[in-house]
């Protein structure tokens, strides 16, 4: 069992953890802002921008897992199965969140902006009719991701209690 993760895995994990938590926070907050709030337009703009920026890193992490899967942490079979499912969700759901977000925000055929320096073309016309459905799905997926983060943290606590400090140092300390 490796004592620590490879730096690429380590930094990808924490970059995406920070990015996705920021997205969840912004997404849940921005839809509650009052119409005259200074961030009413800015926060969704940042949310769309960061979502697009996270996409290549999410793909990298997903590809890394496909090409170089890690052996499961020694634990009861049910815990290994659950951890496998949670990890698969944590890798996959954010990609679906980007996809539904792009379909929703790009459904009118106008380009999507990454801050003010990169215009990403809108989805092809044939896909734009799914915009409204994608918008609803996006919210459901976001809550599902939040639930998975909760399970993930429960797993961290379990390993800390069960295996002592070595149960979390491989992703916690460099």
């Amino acid at each position, binding site marked *: 069992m490796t004592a620590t993760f490879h730096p690429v895995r380590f930094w990808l994990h924490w970059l995406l953890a920070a990015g996705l938590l920021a997205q969840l926070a912004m997404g849940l907050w921005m839809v509650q802002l*009052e*119409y*005259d709030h200074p961030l009413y337009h800015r926060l*969704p703009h940042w949310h769309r921008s960061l979502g697009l920026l996270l996409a290549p890193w999410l793909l990298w992490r997903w590809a890394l897992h496909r090409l170089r899967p890690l052996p499961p942490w020694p634990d009861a079979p049910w815990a290994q199965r659950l951890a496998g499912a949670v990890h698969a969700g944590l890798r996959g759901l954010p990609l679906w969140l980007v996809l539904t977000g792009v379909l*929703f*925000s790009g*459904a*009118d055929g106008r380009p999507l902006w990454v801050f003010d320096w990169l215009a990403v073309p809108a989805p092809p016309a044939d896909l734009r009719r799914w*915009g*409204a459905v994608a*918008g*609803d799905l996006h919210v459901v997926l976001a809550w599902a991701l939040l639930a998975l983060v909760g399970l993930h943290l429960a797993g961290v606590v379990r390993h800390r209690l069960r295996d002592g400090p070595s149960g979390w140092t491989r992703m916690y300390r460099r």
Partner: protein
Amino acid sequence: MTRGRWIWGVLAAWLALPAGAVEYRIDTQGAHAFIEFRIQHLGFSWMFGRFDRFKGGFEYDEQHPERNRVEVVIEMDSVNTNHTERDRHLRGPDFFDVKRYPLATFVGDRWTELGDGRARLSGRLQMRGITRPVTLTVTHMGHGRDPWGGYRRGFYATGTLKLSDWKMKKAAALGSHAEEIRLELSLEGIRQ
């Protein structure tokens, strides 16, 4: 269930027709009917939108125009302002709340001829479960045979609503310039 409701409403309206009135079905199938609206964006400009799906019919009595009657049922989730994110917000509980109130119904049954092809049509608009009186100014555009064997009659109508009458949660936040919303309808009927 909710989809079936308007059918019975329209059917009931037609069954209640007085003799002498001629029935028309609004040509939504051929999209020769439009329900457009506009509301001010902070007083800077007009924002336009429309409802893409609705059904309805009217009765027109040349001898007794006071018997004229219009019924239109709008599927509120068909709101279209050329902005999918905004449309989703409009469909949600802050505004139309389409999950609870999928349909809006307008029944216009008080027709007053103003001469020169113009009329005033008063009725009731039910939206979000709240019914309020609405008056439209109607222009009779034309009627006659179409090239395909049918008989058509069409109207153009405008009216003004106050958003606060329908108690939409976030309507007040849109500011004083957006208290009123203007309706613009073009309805072409095919004689049945």
